[in-house]
């Protein structure tokens, strides 16, 4: 591999350039791509599945699929859209396999020293993280892509192959549920893998039995 004149451009490469150079044979560009995406991907996946160790595995799984698919990536969507689309799939597969396991999320009222009001609770990162895990994962993925990753509705729609209207609806329902949880009024099941809505107040239970 010769060291080319324009090997090291004076600015950081755009995603598209990174991909093009990778495809041309600069395989180390993949490392740059990993560096560029790994932290936010980890956070996204962790917030979706709620399991820190497994989220590292899923980040790797995502990059493996990205690496496989990159030569055929035609740029019809933005690279970030495509990467998160893969990540969302990886998460959904994981959650589907784990469907029968329950992630118990403490009720606000059961926590030691629960914060007194919505404003305090919404800023408590542990409480907010748990609240996110207590809503259905389809809603959670949408609201995280919007608020954690910064995607537009259009981008989320592309990434998840759903209509923009569905994105809007899911984000709205996610927020409504989260607000109810944070106000201390909602939620029984606390199952991270649950796709249906949850209802009623009560202590978290194992809805599927072990």
């Amino acid at each position, binding site marked *: *591999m*010769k*060291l080319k004149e324009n*090997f*090291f451009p004076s600015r950081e490469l755009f995603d598209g350039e990174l991909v093009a150079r990778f495809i041309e044979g600069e*395989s*180390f560009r*993949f*490392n*740059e791509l*990993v*560096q560029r995406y*790994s*932290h936010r991907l*980890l*956070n996204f996946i*962790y*917030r979706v599945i709620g399991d*820190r*160790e497994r*989220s*590292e*595995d899923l*980040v*790797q*799984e995502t*990059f*493996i699929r990205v*690496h*496989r698919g990159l030569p055929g990536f035609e740029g019809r969507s933005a690279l970030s859209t495509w990467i998160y689309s893969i990540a969302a799939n990886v998460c959904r597969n994981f959650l589907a396999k784990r469907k029968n396991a329950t992630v118990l999320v403490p009720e606000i009222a059961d926590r030691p020293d629960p914060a007194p009001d*919505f*404003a305090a609770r*919404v*800023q408590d*990162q542990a409480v*907010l*993280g748990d609240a*996110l895990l207590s809503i259905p994962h389809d809603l959670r993925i949408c*609201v*995280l892509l*919007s*608020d*954690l990753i*910064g995607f*537009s*509705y259009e981008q989320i729609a592309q990434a998840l192959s759903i209509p923009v209207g569905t994105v*809007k*609806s899911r*984000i*709205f329902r996610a*927020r*409504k549920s*989260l*607000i109810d949880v*944070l106000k201390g009024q909602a939620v029984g099941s606390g199952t991270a893998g649950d796709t249906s809505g949850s209802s009623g107040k009560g202590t978290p239970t194992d809805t599927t039995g072990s």
Partner: protein
Amino acid sequence: MDCDRFEEDISAYVDGELAPERAARLQDHLATCECCRELRDRMMQLKTSIGDLPEPEIAPEELWSPATAVAPARPRLTALGIFARVAAVTAVAATSFVFGIVFMSVLQQSAQMGSSPVELMAPTEEKGAPSGRDQIGAPAPPEESTSRGDSSVPGYETSSGPRSAAEPTVTVKPYAGAKPPGAAKAYVLTVDDTVLLIAIDREGRVIAARPLGR
């Protein structure tokens, strides 16, 4: 007041995704409706707080020695760690190296040699050929690895097995010659007969790697 029809719009409004006419109507409504204003405020707080959620804590990467490499520790999530495992699954055999950066140069070199993953995974007679074994940081091959525990490949051991006697000889020396632009450091890495030049930038990213003339 029937605010239900505005609720979903409030959510889109907070995201800047509400069409101008609807946004104008919503703003008119918000001017007169305290509970909708409260909902808007709560949604905005929620959006901001979600955006501020931090990454999970990752333990600092263990400096691995041959002892740690054999222990069943989970590989730490760094870009190099990820890349190492991607490389192991997608292309190339792993060898125990001293530096993580070397992993990538081996990948590049093997890609140049045009070897297929299967060929590389099976140790060959050729001296210096990388053999599929211990990986950087931890011997925990991903489930997709085609060579995991493949006892039909002669000489192949699972990475949790004992190290064999045929360890490659690895040496690293600083490279005193001209470095590529942007390189902070350069090293000469020798693995048995293979000699590589590796250049890394200030952040430790490999920016160039190539075989040196023997």
